[in-house]
């Protein structure tokens, strides 16, 4: 287990940012820490990074109680990106890497390798203020992963990147993950990480309201609804093995959304439909994380 968070409480003057939050992050996975703004994500990340300490509760890193020696094994890219504006990029990256315990010559070698990889060849002597925002993000990303951290925490990783660069960075993150790094994404934009995450935890109003592997969460939110596309004429008379949720007539094909009636199977639906129409496509509609998220958050509000 890469990270084991147990009963964390963090109280700020006036409000409780984290209320008895526990979660587990397995080694080698991509983990999504999700939740609307103000849910407590940043507070939790700061505790993992030892920027602040919890009022109560414990964090275990690789089975050991979190301590200073773990700092060098974590890479953190905060939501609000920032670098020294007037410092040369190469120099700046060396400095940040050395703060993470990397040796100077080693840091320089790795920076050059990353520059090569991300097409940042002649950036060494440039200053941050001379770069575009997207370029600055690249530098920030390099500074996050330079010391080969075992755990990489990325807060809103793709905000500020143009689609092309976002894709490049995404590929790099996936490669780092393949090489063994555990990744935590923190975001309020579900759709950006849904396809990447193996597991998620959903925070809302300082509480964890949902967690687990993405697949099983989505499966648990299946509610026997299907999309069927067909051509032909179909009359609905109430004897079907399904309820009609939506009917979208089209020029060549028609689209319906259905929900299975109790104790009926997809096979029975097909048996019912096959003699009547020619089926083009049948697909189960599994709710997206976004839908689950909204549903959960709204439930939580009530």
């Amino acid at each position: 287990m890469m990270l084991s968070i147990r009963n964390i409480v963090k109280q700020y003057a006036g409000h409780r940012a984290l209320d008895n939050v526990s979660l587990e992050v397995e080694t080698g996975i991509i983990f999504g820490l999700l939740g609307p703004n103000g849910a407590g994500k940043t507070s939790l990340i700061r505790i993992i990074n030892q920027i602040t300490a919890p009022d109560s509760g414990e964090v275990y890193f690789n089975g050991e109680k979190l301590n200073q020696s773990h700092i060098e094994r974590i890479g953190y890219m905060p939501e609000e990106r920032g670098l020294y504006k007037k410092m040369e990029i190469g120099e700046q990256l060396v400095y940040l890497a050395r703060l993470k315990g990397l040796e100077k010559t080693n840091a320089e070698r790795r920076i050059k390798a990353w520059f090569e990889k991300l097409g940042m060849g002649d950036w060494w002597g440039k200053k941050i203020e001379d770069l575009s925002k997207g370029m600055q993000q690249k530098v920030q990303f390099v500074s996050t992963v330079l010391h080969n951290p075992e755990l990489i925490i990325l807060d809103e990783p793709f905000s500020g990147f143009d689609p092309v660069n976002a894709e490049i960075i995404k590929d790099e993150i996936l490669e780092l993950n393949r090489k063994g790094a555990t990744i935590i994404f923190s975001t309020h934009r579900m759709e950006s990480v849904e396809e990447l995450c193996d597991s998620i935890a959903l925070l809302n109003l300082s509480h964890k309201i949902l967690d687990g592997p993405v697949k099983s969460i989505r499966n648990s939110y299946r509610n026997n609804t299907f999309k069927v596309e067909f051509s032909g004429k179909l009359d609905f008379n109430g004897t079907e093995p399904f309820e009609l949720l939506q009917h979208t007539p089209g020029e060549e094909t028609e689209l319906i959304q259905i929900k299975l009636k109790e104790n009926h199977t997809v096979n029975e639906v097909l048996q019912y439909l096959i003699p009547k129409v020619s089926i083009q496509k049948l697909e189960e509609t599994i709710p997206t994380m976004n839908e689950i998220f909204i549903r959960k958050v709204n439930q939580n509000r009530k």
Partner: protein
Amino acid sequence: MNKTLLIIQREYLARVKKKSFILMTFLVPGLILAMYAITYLIAANSDSLNKTREIKVIDESGVFAGKLKDHKNIHFSSLSQSLPEAKKAANKNEDLFILSIPKNFTDKNSVQIFSKKKPNFALVNEVETQLNTIATGNNMAAAGIDVVKLSGLKSNISAETKQLTDEGEKDSNLASAYGIGVASAILIYLSLFIYGAQVMRGVIEEKTNRIIEVIVSSVKPFQLMLGKILGVGLVGLTQFLLWIVLSTTVTNIAEKAFTKHETAVEQSNQTQIKGGKNSTGQTQPPIGNPVMSFMKSLEGVNYPYIIGCFIFYFLSGYLLYSALFAAVGSAVDSETETQQFMFPITLPLLFTYILSFAFLVNNPDSSLAFWLSVIPFTAPIAMMVRVPFGVPGWQLALSMVMMVAGFLFTTWVAARIYRVGVLMYGKKASYKELAKWFFYKE
């Protein structure tokens, strides 16, 4: 390598590489060089003063004939020519002056000096003084007063100050103590502000750049604050040391280059004093070269002691105040918001600074001066004003202990505010808020 050292290194190099630092470093020795250049010009100018000037006197009154005495480079001689003829002659000779004294010389502006070149102030002054002395002497004689007796009655006392020390009597030069005291007060005051503000700006920069979160995920906020304070402090120290080294070098070179002129000036000063006494019976202050005479008075100063004290009070005062400046920087989102916090911090500094001119430098041993020089917030300025005048050892020791305790205390307080403040955004900090941060657990 220790991470705090890394931070110190970055803060130091980032500032030392700046153009403004290099400019300031060479500005001060440059000013000293300029001072020597001015001294040189004055000395060179006094060469032209030394040129002999011939003053032909046309004395219609007969009162002054033969009584005007040659003085230094002014040579008097009487002339029987008529004024228009004499004027013609003077028009041809640049160093010839015609002094015309009519019968009714007591009338306003009746005594006149004619020359091709504008006569300088010293010459006119000399002529006027002599005329007045003679005329007054005559008047006194006419009134029955013995001039010789009278001048014997005049007293001219100037006290020489000697300080009693263990080694015996020591010349205590009050003027130089005064000068050094005031100069140190100004220098400490300015440098505490300049370098304190640099720390504050650095903290605000990191906060607004948002790099702070990246850095505190690698090091503790306290390490960052300490690294920044020490880094900037080393910049200040480097600046002062470079100033001392460069200034000494410049002084040595300049002294060698201008030695000839210096002696010339000194000699002329001496003859002037003698001449003044002889001719008029009055002591005149040497006009010569005020810069030179001030520098002469600085020769007896114990520089290692004063510089040592200065560096101690600069460093300890800087550590004390920059910690507070850092806390202020951490509490705000931009420099414009710093006002409300800056005022109480700068108040003791400003107060002591003003007081050092108005009171301390004149009363360096008063009890107010004592208390101000042991309270850490005011001690850097107050003690530096007192040091040139001599401070009892135990007072200096007490003050230094208080300074160390003072900066340890402010650093501790500032660190507690700083660690919370640097991660707070968009919250308008008040004193109540700062107090809350101070009591946060972690």
